[in-house]
């Protein structure tokens, strides 16, 4: 019996449809990657490019004819400063560092930013600057005949090493980088030991009782709680409830005129520690679970106690994986914004955070602040800060990978 006549010959169209959909599936994958590319390109695009600078005070009016401000002698600069600076500002700067002791470059900076006050009239992105130079030059000469067109790296070493200021041209991320590093140190200090200890207990000691199952389920659920809720928790517990402790007043620390009232690096770090604790525990549990049972048995068989077995055999054998998991969690914490806003990150800091009881800001907080400003210059500043943030996260991950590989090598030969 043959059934062929009952079936339509449809194979060609089926294969064609298969090819079409295969393309669709591939495209959705590509789309995700294209998005990532676009994200990175946008950031780079915004972090460099032409700016049109217009001085509030014409530089030529300050110096004798035929001279330029740049390259002017210290005495000329001093004269300009004496004349142009308001007495209050003059005293403030004098107090900071006497003018007589300042270098020429320093004086030039003061003249530039305090008297000349260059303003950004227009900004362009990197791609505009590269491919539409002609249009930019034309526009500039038409709209800002006094303006100067210069290529600016918003992300620069100066940006990295300067503290926060209110102006987009002079501001830097040093304050935020310090804040991020201090905060994350607190986070690591608390979350690593507690997380790893909890994982050890759950994997090595805990019996399969109802309580332990509850703890386990609870950890999974905590891992899914939105980060902003942790912010609320931190606000209520660390900032308000433990204010005496987190503000440092219990230790007599907040003397330097800083009223941080609990909204400190310490509160921020502890909040982030709670946030990443479940992730660290889950990752560490997986790492410990991967250690073979025979290793444990052989240790117990030579008369080691349970803790000796864990300390001398299980932990060394799983430490590389524990570390990798923990670092992943930490790099998530570095990028967290919402909980820290809630905990009370400062919108503007005049002083770099110097310790755990300082007021804080962090890189993502600054990115948030700058992005939400309407002026275009701040968009470029935000892009530059994003580059710093991503670089920080990348170097952290690189550090973890290198350490892990080194530990693996030791494990093999040690």
């Amino acid at each position, binding site marked *: 019996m043959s059934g062929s006549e009952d079936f339509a010959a449809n194979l060609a169209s089926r294969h064609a449809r*298969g090819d079409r959909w*295969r393309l*669709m*599936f591939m495209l*959705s*994958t590509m789309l*995700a*990657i294209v*998005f*990532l590319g*676009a*994200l990175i390109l*946008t*950031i780079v695009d*915004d972090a460099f490019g032409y700016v049109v600078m217009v001085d509030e005070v014409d530089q030529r009016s300050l110096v004798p004819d035929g001279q330029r401000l740049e390259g002017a002698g210290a005495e000329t600069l001093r004269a300009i400063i004496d004349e142009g600076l308001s007495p209050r500002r003059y005293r403030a700067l004098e107090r900071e560092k006497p003018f007589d002791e300042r270098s020429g470059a320093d004086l030039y900076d003061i003249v530039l930013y305090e008297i000349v006050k260059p303003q950004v009239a227009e900004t362009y992105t990197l791609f505009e600057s590269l491919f539409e130079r002609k249009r930019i030059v034309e526009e500039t000469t038409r709209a800002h005949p006094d303006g100067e067109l210069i290529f600016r790296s918003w992300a620069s070493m100066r940006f990295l090493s300067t503290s926060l200021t209110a102006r987009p041209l002079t501001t830097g991320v040093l304050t935020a980088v310090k804040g991020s590093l201090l905060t994350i140190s607190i986070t690591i200090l608390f979350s690593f*030991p*507690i997380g790893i*200890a*909890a994982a050890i*207990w759950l994997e090595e*000691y*805990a019996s399969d009782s109802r309580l332990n199952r509850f*703890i386990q389920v*609870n950890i*999974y*659920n*905590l891992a*899914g*709680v*939105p980060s*902003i*809720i942790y*912010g*609320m*928790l931190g606000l*209520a*517990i660390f900032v*308000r409830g433990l204010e005496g402790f987190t503000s440092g007043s219990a230790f007599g620390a907040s003397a330097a005129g800083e009223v941080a009232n609990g909204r400190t690096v310490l509160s921020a770090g502890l909040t982030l520690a709670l946030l990443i*604790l479940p992730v660290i*525990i889950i990752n560490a549990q997986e790492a410990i679970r991967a250690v073979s049972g025979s290793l444990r048995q052989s240790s117990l068989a030579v008369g080691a*106690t*349970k*803790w000796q077995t864990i300390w001398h055999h299980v932990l060394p054998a799983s430490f590389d994986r524990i570390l990798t998991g923990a670092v*992943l969690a930490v*790099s998530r914490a570095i*990028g967290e*914004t*919402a909980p820290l*806003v*809630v905990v*009370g*990150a400062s919108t503007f800091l005049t002083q770099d955070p110097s310790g755990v009881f300082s007021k804080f800001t962090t890189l*993502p907080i600054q990115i*948030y602040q700058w*992005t*939400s400003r309407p002026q275009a210059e701040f968009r470029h500043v*935000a892009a530059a800060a*994003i580059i710093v943030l*991503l670089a920080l*996260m990348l170097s952290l991950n690189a550090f973890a990978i290198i350490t892990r590989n080194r530990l693996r090598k030791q494990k093999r030969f040690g």
Partner: protein
Amino acid sequence: MKPVQTAMYPEETRGVLSFGKRSRPHENIIQAVLVFCAAVSILTTLGIIVVLGTESSAFFREVSLREFLTGRSWQPSIGEFGILPLVNATLMTSLAAMLVALPLGLGVAVYLAEYASERVRETLKPILEVLSGVPTVVYGYFALTVVTPALRNLFGQDSIEVYNTLSAGLVMGVLILPLVSSMCEDALSAVPRSLREAAYAMGATKLETSVMIIVPAAFSGIAAAFILGLSRAVGETMIVALAAGAGPKLTLNPLKAAETMTGHIVRISGGDISYDSMDYRSLFAIALVLFVTTLALNMVSRSIVKKYREVYE
């Protein structure tokens, strides 16, 4: 002459081998420390519940639950605490996100699980993971500076506001995409080989096998991915805080600005807020809704995944 005996082990000093339990105080201390560390997670949960509970109950002493849940306006300055506008905006951004994340995520998952070679898979998956590792504030920056202007160029400057839920939702979809795709891929890979073979043996093409047999068989896992993605979207904050708009508004138009629950919490708590005010307490009431919603979604998703793992194992 007596041989000199040196006792090398504690048991030997007693002259006989003892199998009795030696008390080891430091092992007990260690164990107590470990238990405490494990209990920190319980304390955290307890802390969340107590904090949200006490502040919200202070809030609900002044605002009735009915008013809170059904009121159509959220304006603390005139004492209106209806959460609907916030919930509505959250749903709009989350649904927009899922409209991006689910089809794309499923497409990625089918491609990775059914089509891609081992090598391609090993290359693509880390790239997708990078996508989920980018801080959300960066996504917010992208939504505001790239996606919104692009949408406005596409649909006209006048029809789309500078802050809108559509742009925030779309970008959030990309953020959630890696989560959805990896969970879908797990679900697809959990479908037994035998089903694939059965389909191929009947002269099915790869597409027919994947889409008509494997995807339906993995339905529960895909549903779990959707639910978890939704939960992530509901709790996501920075993208909506930057791109969706400030100020609660009850609108179904995704081209208009509207503030989500998370966006509102961040905006208000980021400003100068005095403790023990209604503004302050209302944030905890919103957070409570957020917490209960996401917790419920997470638990449903987890139980679905657990169930399908049991079916196939």
